[in-house]
């Protein structure tokens, strides 16, 4: 397999093993260029549109995830888990091989952590889901289901671990201490380890003892250094006393503390004790291995499989008593390795698997919290559309017409949330009857509107402005003959029509707000916030203007003023601040001459202008 030019087939279920071993070889040889090429090739398949983003479980090896890659003709399954595990394994191995604190290494860890979400583009994935309207409840349901599976998996792992440990301990013994503490049992491997510890201790003692004898001889040869050598002897003897205590801890039968007492000073005593211990350990070990050999020889094939004893390992058990010392020594080493490794994998291996599964459950929980926040933000941003065009979705009948019940649209409710779906465009009804229904409810009075329009656009300047907005005439005709254009193009009627549309839209929104109070509330907040910001901007402009005119600049803290107003929108004082802002806007309008009163008709009729809701359509607010 050429890593520099791998093809999708190289990564399928049959070939992934070869790929990974090639990966190892390249790594061992430091051939990073090749590794890079391989990874880039994988990337090419995925990025160049050849990937079908899908994951699933292999039929042959359930539990392993793969990603399907197609070259247009054939589809291959890439085992990303294996690739990811491998990379992680290697990084871990590198940490193990180079232990200790290291800033660069810490940076690597932190980089890896930081990149985890980003490199998987998981945020984008979740955003896409949220934008498609996949509900948080459904998302949570999926996570709960997966977590239930994880819980079951953990339970199974624990049961499996318990069963395997029991089987192992039944076969090879276990370490126990009964409650009274005066009776203990030890497993075979513990007993073997104790013997081996004993050998190490007694060999050390022998080394110390020989050194003491050497030093004693040196004192006779060179009495002038007596005190120096005696000090060294004293130290070695102290050390031997300690080793004596350690050997007693091994609890070898036939060895009592009198045999160890003062052994550092008595050559005869030491030699005897030394040989007793050595013989005893050799006998004990032989008996342990003999026992192991017999235990394994008596196991049924099913037991061997359950205990993970392959024919090769079994042959080692058979060889522990071989008369050829080198053969038996090698067999005993292999048996020790099996027992220690198996014991470790029974606890550590499964514990790690459980820990990973528990982390996965935690990740899913975090995932749900993240998604909840994301969907909320996306929904809020939809409602917050300044154009106000995001509205609850209305139900249509089979002909595609909206269903109106009692003068209200029937809403299309999302069953998973109980809230209506939203749609971004508000269609004003075109049929006369429905329009009239809304206008009536809005208490829209055409004659009043006309009076208001006449009042508002009485001056030539106002007409010019409105004509420009309506895109009637050109700058010269608008300047010289606004009145003629006004009549010729029936601008009054056009403005009236626009007001009619606005009145219908407003009434529709009110209807929705009655049905969906939450949306109404959010819409109100948005309106208020918008005004607060506007007010802040006005204050800013006023401040700047005042400053230019030589006002006392120090008496107003500009940034604080703006900050306070903006912050108010986010705090509990929003409504209060909103009211203040509204009053300020009204005050300014009064100063500019655009008040509600100014559009009340001469016969003292009711105020009909809804200017406040038609925010500054003629730039009246411009200072």
């Amino acid at each position, binding site marked *: 397999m050429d890593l520099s030019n791998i093809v999708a087939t190289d990564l399928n279920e049959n070939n992934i093993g070869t790929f990974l071993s090639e990966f190892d070889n390249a790594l061992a040889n430091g051939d990073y260029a090749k590794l*890079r090429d391989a990874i880039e090739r994988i990337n090419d398949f995925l990025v160049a549109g050849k990937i*079908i*983003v899908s994951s699933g479980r292999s039929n042959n090896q359930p539990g392993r*995830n793969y990603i399907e890659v197609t070259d247009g003709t054939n589809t291959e399954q890439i085992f990303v888990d294996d690739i990811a595990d491998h990379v992680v394994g290697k990084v871990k191995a590198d940490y193990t091989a180079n232990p200790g604190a290291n800033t*660069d290494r810490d940076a*690597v860890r932190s980089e890896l952590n930081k990149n985890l*979400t980003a490199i998987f583009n998981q945020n984008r994935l979740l955003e*896409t*889901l949220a934008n498609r309207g996949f509900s948080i409840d459904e998302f949570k349901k999926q996570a709960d289901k997966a977590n239930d599976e994880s819980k079951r998996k953990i339970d199974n792992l624990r049961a499996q671990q318990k069963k395997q440990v029991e089987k192992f301990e039944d076969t090879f013994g276990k370490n126990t201490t009964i409650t009274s503490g005066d009776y203990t049992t030890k497993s075979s491997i513990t007993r073997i380890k104790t013997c081996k510890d004993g050998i190490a201790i007694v060999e050390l003692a022998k080394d110390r003892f020989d050194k003491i004898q050497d030093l004693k001889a040196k004192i006779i040869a060179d009495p002038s250094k007596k005190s120096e050598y005696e000090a060294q002897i004293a130290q070695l003897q102290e050390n031997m006393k300690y080793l004596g205590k350690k050997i007693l801890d091994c609890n070898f039968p036939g060895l009592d503390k009198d045999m160890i007492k003062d052994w550092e000073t008595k050559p005869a005593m030491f030699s005897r004790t030394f040989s007793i211990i050595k013989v005893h350990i050799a006998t004990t070990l032989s008996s342990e291995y003999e026992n192991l050999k017999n235990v394994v020889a008596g196991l049924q094939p099913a037991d061997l499989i359950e205990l993970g004893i392959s024919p090769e390992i079994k042959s080692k058990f058979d060889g522990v008593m071989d008369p050829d010392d080198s053969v038996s020594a090698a067999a005993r080493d292999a048996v020790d390795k099996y027992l220690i490794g198996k014991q470790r994998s029974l606890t550590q291996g499964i514990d790690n698997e459980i820990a*990973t599964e528990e982390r996965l459950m935690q990740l899913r929980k975090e995932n749900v919290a993240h998604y909840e926040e994301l969907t909320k933000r996306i929904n809020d941003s939809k409602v917050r559309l300044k154009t106000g065009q995001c509205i609850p979705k209305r139900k249509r009948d089979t002909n595609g017409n909206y269903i109106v019940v009692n003068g209200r649209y029937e809403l299309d409710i999302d069953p998973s949330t109980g809230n209506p779906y939203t749609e971004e465009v508000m269609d004003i009804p075109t049929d006369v009857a429905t329009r009239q229904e809304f206008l009536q409810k809005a208490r829209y009075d055409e004659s009043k509107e006309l009076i208001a329009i006449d009042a508002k656009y009485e001056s030539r300047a106002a007409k010019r402005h409105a004509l420009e907005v309506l895109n009637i005439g050109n700058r010269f005709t608008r300047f010289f003959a606004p009145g003629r254009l006004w009549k010729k193009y029936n601008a009054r009627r056009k403005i009236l029509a626009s007001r009619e549309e606005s009145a219908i839209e407003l009434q529709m929104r009110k209807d929705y707000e009655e049905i969906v109070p939450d949306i109404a509330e959010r819409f109100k907040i948005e309106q208020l916030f918008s005004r607060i910001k506007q007010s802040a901007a006005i204050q800013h402009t006023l401040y700047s203007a005042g400053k230019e005119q030589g006002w006392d600049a120090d008496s107003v803290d500009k940034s604080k003023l703006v900050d306070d107003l903006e912050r108010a929108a986010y705090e509990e004082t929003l409504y209060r601040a909103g009211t203040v802002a509204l009053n300020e806007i009204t005050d300014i309008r009064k100063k500019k001459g655009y008040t509600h009163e100014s559009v009340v008709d001469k016969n003292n009729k009711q105020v009909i202008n809804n200017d406040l809701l038609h925010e500054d359509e003629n730039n009246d607010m411009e200072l």
Partner: protein
Amino acid sequence: MDNNVEELLKALEKVNSLMTDENIERATTEQLLRYNELINKIKARLIELV
């Protein structure tokens, strides 16, 4: 920084860049959900390191 780790990290980043915006847009909702779960599973193992 250790070359070994640095190179491997680069490799890891590249492997993971499979989730391109284009691929995400093209995936079905069901695929996105499955992929999200897959990412969580890989993260659960990777996170042991960090």
